[in-house]
Each structure stands twice: as structure tokens, then as C-alpha cells.
């Protein structure tokens, strides 16, 4: 069964099988300047930029083009328990088969989406810039690696990325790196529970502030303002939450082509072995090959290294652009830390599906103690070495506890009995979340599992992953800060997610790392592979280290920078 077949019928691309029946022309473009593979934010931003400069651009996307009008129905699928969340965007099945042979299971199909718009179709839309220190982890803390570019190099592209995605944000975050201009949209105001948190935090000397969202606080770029469906992750029926289908459409309006249901099987190089000549791609109507002057692989942090590994050849026996051996290695994710419970007052949760306040006070100084009028957060009692802890990003959730409809659909009661349970269940829930990042380790990697194949007969990705001690320590530290804040509030703490219970945040980083040395890295600072001159990789796979900020704004900034380089080359 094809993983996308669950969606056939509701998407404009029509059915699967022999011949798509949707009338779409999936034949290659003649005389293409650029072939972009993958239509998430990385691929579509580049496609849009280059199409806008008059270049002939073709985007090959493995998944379908989803019909915007199908979103209310996808929302219902997300809310109703007879469907798995992955089915909302048709993930699963043979198309998306994978292995997870590492110490920790990795739930890959919960962690991505395939289709025009990529994983942003189901993302949360939290967008932050990395801090200056994130680019210099080796120099500053003696761990991980430095990036081959600095915050300053990326800063103008961060500003552009914020405009492209339509970021709602404010300048009230004292811990944020320097900015040159305000975000294009005003930040969402703090929620009712943010105000509850802010009081307790102030007593402890912890500063709370707004948080940037790729979500319209006002209508922007032809998309609606947020109307509060509250189902942002996995689907925003109104389109207020940014997703990359926006840039796919923009690229098309500028003359670019986006071909859906076109998974690239491999890239083939010319006789010299130093240039990619063609991308071989499957379609419902058969296999095709696309030639172009420049190729951009933007398939996300798992499929990007997989495609390079699948493109092994005589000239590139270990996989394309893999003379360093680093392709697939150093896989990192952010890990979730959370603590929650109940207050004996109402907290107004579950009106919206996104976060409106955070504290980044423990990002650059995760071990620091704080002092306020009512006490403080104790300093970390670890060994105090620099780099002993990683950065911590702390979030104040607006969706703690069950939603009434979710509880009703799963309840064994009905009528008045159900209503009274829902009333007592809803009310005082309150919780904090947070992210911490992993350091790069060669043994955490994406490899090919040659014993299992996907619907096209290609070896599936094998995620070999686990969680190291520094990450566990940092999760403990995050839990400790969360506990102190919740205790100050008088919360009856009933759960926490720490080193034992944690799971990934679905940010796939590190697997085609960026660096200056071709012996130890895959791409350079402009995202071009060291080995293959006309091959650019745009993805969080190029991140040498992970920081603890959600990655997509950085992906977008790097993609815009890469597009500027490509434009000059073309």
C-alpha cells in the first residue's frame, strides 16, 4: 500500500496507481536552470527566490498536493480518536517505511509530513533565531562544533525569513540576539495563564516575554488572521499558521513548476563525477529524469542524507558528496522537558493551540540561579564546567490538560454524567514545556537498512539514535526550574517529562553537517557540497550543532542565503 493512498480522493492530485488520473503533467522540464527536490520551507523558499529572478525552476515533491478545502476535514480527523494523528496528512504505509535500530525508538512518521508544504503542514510554527553562542559552541564551551558562519552573517537573512514566513513577534525578549528591525506582525498578547505564570516568575527573579510565531496575528500575505481553531498542530484550517505551500504557490505564480507525487530515486553525476547531471524520479505515470544546471536537495534531515546515500555510484561509492563519510552521521533532535499539574483556580486552557510566552533566561546560562523578592531558582549543583549543560528554552503552555471535545470522544459516559466529568476535568490545568538540544555524535545516524525496502524498492532509512548524558542532565535541570516555578504558584504537580520519559521534538539536524574542512563536513557555509560543484543541500541537516531553538527560521534564513549564492552562479 502506498502511504499516500489514505489520502487519495481528497487531494487534487487524485488517485495513485498506474496513471494518476489527475491530468497533471509530470514530465521533466526542458532547459531547467534549477531542480529543487522537496517542497518544504527550505525548497520552496529557494524555488520562489530563483523563480523571482527569472530562472527556470522545477520542484520535485514526493508527496501529494493537498487541497486547502480539505483542511476542516483533516482537523476533524485530528480531533477524533479513530484516526491516528499521522493519518491527517497521509503519513505511513510502504512509502514511508523506516527502521529504528538505535537504543531509543524514533517515531519518524510522527516527525514529518510529505506533500507540497512539507512538514510545515503539521508543524507548530514556533520561530526563533539561534543565539550568537549557538554558532560557537566549540570555541565557547569546548563541546560540539563551531558553525562556519556567525550570527552576524545570518542576521540579514533571519530578517528576510521573518518577512517571508509572516512572523508575529515583539522586541520584549531581553535574552534574544540583536535585531535590526521589528517582526513584520505584532506579537500575540499573553494568555490568561501567561499572566498567572508571570507573577510567580517575577517573585523568583525569572523574566517572561513574548514568543515569535509564524502565525498571523493580523491578516498577512493574503492569509487570514488566526481565528482560534486551536488545532494548529497538526492542521490549521484557516491558513493563519504559515506553511510552505504558500511559497510553492508563489514560485508557481512566478513561472516555477511544482511536480507532486514525484519522489526522487537518485541523483546521477556526469562523467567527471563532480557535477550532478540528472535527478531520476518516479511518478504515478512512470519514471522520468530531470536535468538541470543546479540541484538543491531539500528533503528534510532524514531524507536528504538518505537520497545522497541512495545515489552511490562508482565515483561516489559511499554515497554522493560523502567523501568525508559524514553523510547521515551526527543526527540530533531537541528533547522535550515538561512539568504540570493543577491549580485550585481556573486557568483558561485550550482556547488556542499555540504558545504566547516563554523564558529564554536559561538559554545562554542554563545553570544560573535567580533571585527575586519571593525567593529564586537555585543554581545548578553539577560540576559547573562550561558545557556541562546545554541551552534550555522554557515554554508556558496554553493547552495543558485535556480538551473537552477530546475527553468527550474518549469517555465511557454521556449525558449529564459526562458533562459533570468534563466540567471537573477542565479548569485548573497548568503546565510548562521546554526544549533542550543534543550534541553531535557520529554514532547517532541515518543509515540505509538494506533489508527493508519502500514502495519504490529503495532501502529504507534506519534511525540509530539515543540520548546522551549531557542531554539528560540538561533535561533534569529544565525539570528543576519548571518545578520551582510551579511550586511557587502552588500547583499540585501531577506529571513531569524528564530524561526517562522524554521524546523528540521532530527537528532533524546534523546529518549533512556544514563546515570548512571537506574531510569532516559535507557542505560549506553557502550550503554547497564540498564534493559536487552544482549540488546544494538546504535543510537543518546542515546544522553542525542543534542549539535549543526550533530550527525552521534558521533553515529559512540559510535557504535564502543559499538562494542568493545560486542566483549569482546561474
Amino acid at each position: 500500500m502506498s502511504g499516500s493512498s489514505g489520502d487519495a480522493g481528497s487531494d487534487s492530485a487524485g488517485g495513485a496507481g498506474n496513471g494518476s488520473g489527475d491530468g497533471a503533467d509530470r514530465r521533466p522540464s526542458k532547459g531547467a536552470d534549477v531542480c529543487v527536490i522537496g517542497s518544504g520551507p527550505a525548497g520552496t523558499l529557494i524555488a520562489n527566490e530563483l523563480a523571482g529572478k527569472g530562472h527556470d525552476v522545477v520542484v520535485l515533491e514526493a508527496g501529494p498536493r493537498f487541497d486547502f478545502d480539505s483542511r476542516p476535514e483533516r482537523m476533524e480527523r485530528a480531533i477524533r480518536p479513530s484516526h491516528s494523528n499521522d493519518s491527517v496528512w497521509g503519513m505511513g504505509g510502504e512509502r514511508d517505511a523506516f527502521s529504528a535500530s538505535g537504543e531509543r525508538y524514533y517515531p519518524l512518521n510522527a516527525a514529518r509530513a510529505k506533500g507540497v508544504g512539507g512538514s510545515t503542514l503539521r508543524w507548530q510554527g514556533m520561530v526563533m533565531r539561534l543565539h550568537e553562542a549557538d554558532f560557537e559552541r566549540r570555541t565557547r564551551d569546548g563541546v560540539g562544533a563551531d558553525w562556519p558562519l556567525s550570527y552576524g552573517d545570518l542576521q540579514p537573512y533571519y530578517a528576510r525569513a521573518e518577512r517571508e514566513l509572516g512572523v508575529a513577534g515583539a522586541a520584549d525578549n531581553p535574552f534574544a540576539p540583536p535585531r535590526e528591525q521589528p517582526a513584520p506582525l505584532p506579537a500575540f498578547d499573553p494568555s490568561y495563564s501567561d499572566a498567572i505564570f508571570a507573577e510567580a516568575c517575577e517573585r523568583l527573579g525569572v523574566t517572561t516575554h513574548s514568543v515569535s510565531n509564524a502565525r498571523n496575528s493580523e491578516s498577512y500575505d493574503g492569509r487570514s488572521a488566526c481565528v482560534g481553531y486551536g488545532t494548529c498542530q497538526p492542521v490549521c484550517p484557516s491558513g493563519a499558521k504559515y506553511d510552505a505551500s504558500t511559497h510553492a504557490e508563489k514560485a508557481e505564480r512566478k513561472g516555477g513548476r511544482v511536480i507532486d507525487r514525484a519522489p526522487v530515486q537518485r541523483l546521477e553525476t556526469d562523467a567527471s563525477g563532480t557535477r550532478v547531471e540528472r535527478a531520476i524520479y518516479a511518478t504515478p505515470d512512470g519514471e522520468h529524469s530531470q536535468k538541470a544546471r543546479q540541484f538543491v536537495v531539500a528533503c528534510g534531515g532524514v531524507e536528504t542524507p538518505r537520497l545522497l546515500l541512495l545515489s552511490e555510484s562508482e565515483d561516489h561509492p559511499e554515497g554522493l558528496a560523502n567523501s568525508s563519510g559524514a553523510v547521515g552521521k551526527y543526527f540530533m533532535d531537541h528533547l522535550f522537558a515538561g512539568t504540570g499539574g493543577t491549580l485550585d483556580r481556573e486557568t483558561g486552557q485550550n482556547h488556542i493551540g499555540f504558545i504566547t510566552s516563554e523564558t529564554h533566561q536559561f538559554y545562554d546560562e542554563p545553570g544560573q540561579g535567580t533571585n527575586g523578592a519571593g525567593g529564586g531558582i537555585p543554581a545548578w549543583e553539577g560540576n559547573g564546567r562550561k558545557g556541562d549543560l546545554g541551552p534550555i528554552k522554557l515554554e508556558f503552555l496554553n493547552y495543558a490538560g485535556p480538551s473537552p471535545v477530546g475527553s468527550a470522544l474518549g469517555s465511557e459516559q454521556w449525558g449529564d454524567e459526562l458533562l459533570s466529568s468534563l466540567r471537573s476535568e477542565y479548569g485548573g490545568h497548568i503546565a510548562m514545556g521546554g526544549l533542550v538540544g543534543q550534541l553531535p555524535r557520529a554514532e547517532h545516524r541515518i543509515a540505509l537498512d538494506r533489508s527493508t525496502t519502500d514502495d519504490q524498492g529503495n532501502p529504507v532509512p534506519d534511525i540509530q539514535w539515543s540520548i546522551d548524558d549531557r542531554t539528560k542532565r540538561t533535561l533534569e535541570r529544565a525539570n528543576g526550574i519548571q518545578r520551582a516555578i510551579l511550586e511557587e504558584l502552588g500547583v499540585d504537580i501531577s506529571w513531569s517529562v524528564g530524561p526517562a520519559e522524554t521524546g523528540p521534538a521532530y527537528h532533524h539536524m546534523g546529518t549533512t553537517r556544514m563546515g570548512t574542512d571537506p574531510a569532516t563536513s559535507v557542505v560549506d557555509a553557502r550550503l554547497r557540497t564540498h564534493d559536487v560543484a552544482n549540488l546544494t543541500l538546504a535543510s537543518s541537516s546542515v546544522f553542525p550543532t542543534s542549539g535549543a531553538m526550533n530550527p525552521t527560521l534558521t533553515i529559512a534564513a540559510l535557504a535564502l542565503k543559499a538562494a542568493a549564492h545560486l542566483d549569482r552562479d546561474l
Partner: protein
Amino acid sequence: MELTRRDTLVAAAGTGVSVGGVALSIAHSEPGREVSGSASTAGAGKGVDEGLPAMFVAVARAIYPDRVEGIGELVRTYVAEQFGADGEKVEFRRTATRETARELDELAATRHDASVVDLDPETVSTLLREVGADVAEPDPSGTFAQRLRLYVVNELHYALYTSPTGGKLVGIENPIGHPGGARSYKRGPSA
């Protein structure tokens, strides 16, 4: 608590097919203000015979809290929006729901010698529990109880608890699944 026409429209818009525009126009309207929409379709939509809405109303009277008024209109509008449209998926759901409803009616005939629509709410509630619809996991290809849970019980819970009236009963002004705007989250419980 009375269900307003806005509730029924919104409940349907939040879930139905091809109603994106409707959802938005409702979201931007102030509470109580009349919205343009297809409420006049209440009763019978395309391809929905009278039997299905009537059956849903009878079950809703059994499983909704006593305080809910205006059940007939909510349910009829919801059913019309959910099942009234064209398309392969709607057709599949309509057929599966009809089939499940027919089985329930047959059971009522066997046990009570009457159609579900003629039974009082307590008897309908007992019948549903006897079948196991209260404890069943919803599953489209599961047992009768599982399908009943999915296509009838949960359909009705979804209609109510994603509507502002259902939300208000519980104490949340803008429940998940309802486009109630981006303001209520700031106001807190008393608002």
C-alpha cells in the same frame, strides 16, 4: 442552555466539507450577530433522507446533557452539512453511517418492537449501553458497537463539544475545533 443557529452552523462548518469560507465569516462575526450561510439547509441536505437526521436527534436526546435545548435544529443542520455534500469520501461516510443507523433500528425493533425514533431517551441510552457503544473504541471496520461509537455517538459529541454552547456548558468559551477568534484566550474564566 439553548443552542443558537450560530452554534449549529459553526459545528457543521468546523467539520464539514468545502465550507472554509463559511467558517471564516462566522469567525469574524460577533456573537449573536446573524451570519449568512446555509442554515436553511437544515433538515435534509443532498443525499440525506429524513431517516438519518431523525435517528440522530433521537440518539442526541439520549446522550446530550439535559440542559441542552434546541437539539433538533443543531443535529439536523449538522447532519445536513456533514452528509449533504458530494464527493467520494462523504458518500462513503454517508453509506457507513446509514448502515450503522439501520442496524441500530433493527435492534430496537427486535428488543422494543419500535423504531429508535419512537423510543424515549432513557430506553435509547440503555439500548446503546447494552450494545457496548459506551465502552467501545471507535473503529470504522470494527464491531457494530465500535461503528456505532464512531458514526453516531462520537459524531454527536463532536457536534456538541466543538460548538460554543457545548463549550460554555463545560466552561470554555472557544472550544478546540471552533474558530471562536483569538481573543477569548486572554480573558480568563469569568469572561
